[in-house]
């Protein structure tokens, strides 16, 4: 009986000791933040050359290029949009149009950026997420009255914004 009492006492003490070992806590405050992230990139340069016409036709034979693409990431709380602008306007009678395909937003279809030194919308209603490798299509056209255009470099700027 004495032995049993001692044994019980030992068990109780051990349990207390274990409970004591598992009763340690520590608190830590973690500050988390995800800022608005808008990222956009394009795949490469584009070259467009007009050198043909149909006799009697009002315009020269237009050329198109859809070899380049853009990718974007957007997590803003409001819907985003992509705008396009050109660094300097094209001469009268020479037209450059752009179309951006979009799965995350709504493409504005063909937009004339010949004189868009102030950016114009090309995609709107962009939701949160990513849109990778979406096609950029350029249409380049000219009237014969506009004459020739020596090879000239233009910069088209795409901006993703809220």
């Amino acid at each position, binding site marked *: 009986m004495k032995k049993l009492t001692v044994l019980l006492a030992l068990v109780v003490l051990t349990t207390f000791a274990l409970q004591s070992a598992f009763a340690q806590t520590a608190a830590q405050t973690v500050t988390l933040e995800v800022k608005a992230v808008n990222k956009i*990139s394009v795949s490469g340069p*584009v070259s467009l*050359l007009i050198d043909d016409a149909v006799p009697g036709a*009002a315009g020269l034979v237009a050329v198109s290029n859809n070899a380049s693409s853009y990718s974007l990431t957007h997590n803003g709380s409001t819907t985003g949009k992509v705008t396009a602008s050109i660094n300097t306007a094209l001469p009268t009678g020479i037209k450059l149009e752009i179309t951006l395909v979009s799965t995350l937003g709504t493409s504005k279809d063909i937009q004339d950026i010949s004189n868009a030194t102030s950016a114009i919308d090309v995609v709107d209603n962009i939701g949160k997420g990513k849109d990778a490798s979406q096609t950029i299509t350029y249409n380049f056209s000219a009237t014969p*009255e506009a*004459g020739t255009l020596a090879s000239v470099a233009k910069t088209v700027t795409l901006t993703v914004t809220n």
Partner: protein
Amino acid sequence: MKKIMMVLMIGSLSLMSLENAFAQATTSQNLTLAVNSVYKIATSGNPAPLTISSGTAGSDILTAATDNSTTYSITQNFGNTVKITANLDAVLPAGYTLTITLASTKGTSIPNVNISNATSGSAANVVTAIQRGADANQAIGYSFSALASAGTLASTSRSVTLTITN
């Protein structure tokens, strides 16, 4: 205390606005654009045979045969001094005359240009001072005349070449 709260709220709102304003990114794409010189001319087809079969008694000049059933179209962006020339592949025998007239709204037409002896090395101007642009479906007029003294001419073909050039 109320004022401080108001100032803090305005401060917070301003910061939120700033965050919105800066939430954008840009990328640039380089485009190389060019429009080359373009000269294009086409005709609608071949005229009907030009056959002389009549004359006026006492006159050496037989009654001319004419055709204005065909047209030409051009498009050019080179400049405002472009012209069209015409020539035959081989000259006509003496006493036979083929003239051509090209209507034009973009340039200055030269009427009734004699191309009887105009070959590739001596093409004749038929339209000059053509402005940049397009001129569609303009009439081509042919007149074929002959002298009775030149005798008959068995049916023969000639190729007329119209060239747009500066």
